[in-house]
């Protein structure tokens, strides 16, 4: 059964990583802990579901649409809420609290529009197909989830490390003021980052929605907590950290449920997190506290 558990862990971990990626990106560039990221994740799920059920969109189109819709919400949050706060030099805590408010609004709006009950993708829209390798049941869906998660992460990684845009983002992460003096359009890149981060969160939402097939207005809350743990573990603002941290949390959770007790999943995962932070207070990839991304 170990092989099956490892597959379970890989699927879960890659979605955690994808979710944490957007989260860490916003923190790295904007220096804001965006607590509406969980709600954006939920919006992504509902957006894809609405596209599939109301417009008969194929799944790939629904995923793109969900990215666009959740990205737009991320952008709006930045333009309407974070930007005015930046302009007023609000202390760090203020944007964080403001994003909690955004999260509550989005959750309530989703409940108002779609109701409180659990919604699901119609069965015929899910990629069917299943392979049995030895004792392991592999669904095509799980392979697709892992593939999509890793492709998106690779794209983002290349973007940050190899392109002019990435260089500009890293400069902003280092110091927005210095970047601005160098002629980088800081505000514009803040908007881009918010859009991309929210789009990634939205995709993670669709993938979780597809894998576990349960979409509720509250679904963003537990993953938000996991996301916070992942980016702290990986090093705040570090992209590799989000990837490794996400996979780590997925494996820790599944393996402890499988070999210790199913009550222990979160306890072990978060206990390990605590131990790692004792040894490396700035996380696996966090260098010094003042440097991000």
């Amino acid at each position, binding site marked *: *059964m170990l092989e*099956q*558990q490892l597959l*379970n*862990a890989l*699927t*879960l971990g890659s979605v955690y990583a994808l979710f944490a990626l957007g989260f860490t990106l916003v923190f790295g560039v904007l220096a804001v802990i965006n607590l509406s990221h969980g709600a954006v994740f939920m919006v992504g799920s509902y957006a894809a579901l609405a596209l599939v059920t109301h417009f008969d969109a194929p799944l790939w189109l629904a995923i793109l649409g969900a990215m666009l819709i959740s990205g737009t919400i991320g952008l709006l949050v930045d333009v309407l809420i974070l930007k005015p706060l930046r302009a007023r030099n609000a202390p760090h805590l203020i944007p964080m609290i403001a994003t909690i408010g955004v999260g509550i609004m989005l959750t*309530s709006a989703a*409940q108002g529009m779609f*109701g*409180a*009950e*659990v919604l*699901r993708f119609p*069965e015929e829209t899910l990629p069917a197909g*299943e392979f*049995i390798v030895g004792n392991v*049941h592999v*669904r095509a869906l799980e392979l697709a989830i892992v593939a999509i998660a890793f492709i998106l992460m690779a794209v983002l990684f290349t973007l940050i490390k190899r392109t002019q845009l990435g260089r500009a983002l890293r400069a902003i992460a280092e110091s927005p003021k210095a970047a601005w003096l160098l002629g980088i359009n800081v505000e514009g890149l803040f908007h881009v980052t918010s859009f991309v981060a929210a789009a990634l969160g939205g995709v993670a939402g669709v993938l*979780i929605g597809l*894998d*576990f*097939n*349960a979409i*509720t207005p*509250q*679904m963003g*809350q*537990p993953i938000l907590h996991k996301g916070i743990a992942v980016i702290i573990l990986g090093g705040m603002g570090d992209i590799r950290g989000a990837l490794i941290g996400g996979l780590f949390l997925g494996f820790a*959770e*599944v393996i402890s*449920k*499988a070999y210790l*007790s*199913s*009550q222990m*999943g*979160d306890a072990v995962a978060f206990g390990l997190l605590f131990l790692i932070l004792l040894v490396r207070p700035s996380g696996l990839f966090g260098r010094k506290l003042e440097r991000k991304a």
Partner: protein
Amino acid sequence: MRFACKTLVLVNALACAGLVQAADIKIGIAEALTGGAAQYGVAISNGFQLAAEEINAKGGINGNKITLVIEDEQGKKEESINVFKKLIFQDKVLMIFGPTLSNSMFAAGPVANAAKTVVFGTSVTANGITDVGPYVFRNSVMESDVLPVTVATATKHYQLKKVAVIYGNDDAFTKSGYDVFKKVLEEQKLPVTTTETYVKGDVDFKAQLTKIKGSNPDAVVCSCLAEEAANIMLQARGLGIKAPFIGGNGFNSPKLFEISKLAGEGTFVGSPWSNTNPAPANQAFVAAYQKKYKAEPNQFAAQAYDALNVAAAALKDIKLSGDIVADREALKNALPKATISGATGPFKFRPAKTRSGQPGGWDADQKPFIYLVKGGKFTLYSSK
């Protein structure tokens, strides 16, 4: 012509009399209308509103109309206490229906009991709810009445030798269902291969199910809420588990098997209610609910609907004085004698067996139906 005039006068007189005497009977509804438990609370609140509408359309109770004061307790203990206090002391309702979750009843029930106000739960099945005191009533059939019958029937049907168990361990409802299952499995000498847990809000059960698969059980016993149960079944089939499920009270939702499609095939469930129950009272309820809400009713709506009718039956027998303290007491004394034949079948109360031996509240005295899921539908099980 003369005859017609006379009738008219008579009707007028009656109407006038009605106007003079009629007072509204204020009844508090405290259910979770937002938050995670809203999926039950909304259905429950719908059930109450439908029943109140029907009762009022038939002229109310002895001419008095029912007014519902509906409050959202958000599925939280603290909020339930707040809402209970508001309903009892500010709105001065005659009685309260709710709250949605057993957890909340343990918190808010004592408030109503201390204020000598009847509190009537329709969805609170945890053990010990009616230990709270003599003002606590419920028509939620308890799992300790249903599960022994369910397990025995399934064991006989499938010739079960060993079973695995999965349950939610942070919810009073699923935890107390598990406790009952555990006792029943011990009594019926059915070995358990492994016991797995999850917490509320979990959507990923693959780790636990992979473990269950490794232990190779003949059936999976599941004390879960419907929404989680659907995921558990779907994910179990995805992992190649072929064993049938045996469900607790949480499985009582037609939606569950609509969602889980063939994954739920062969599941045994014991239920106080089913939409397929052909009793006329039930069919009338199902039709009226569909018409009003354009949705399928569930067990929670049915029990709420019946609960208000039980209260109405009791209210028919008492004369309301307008003195709220006396009226509340009169209702408390009349309610245990109330019987109806409702959507959930013939109903009457029986005194709760409290752990302390002191007089407690009142539990439902109803027989469960045992259902086998076939073709995605509950079918009434009959042994060959």
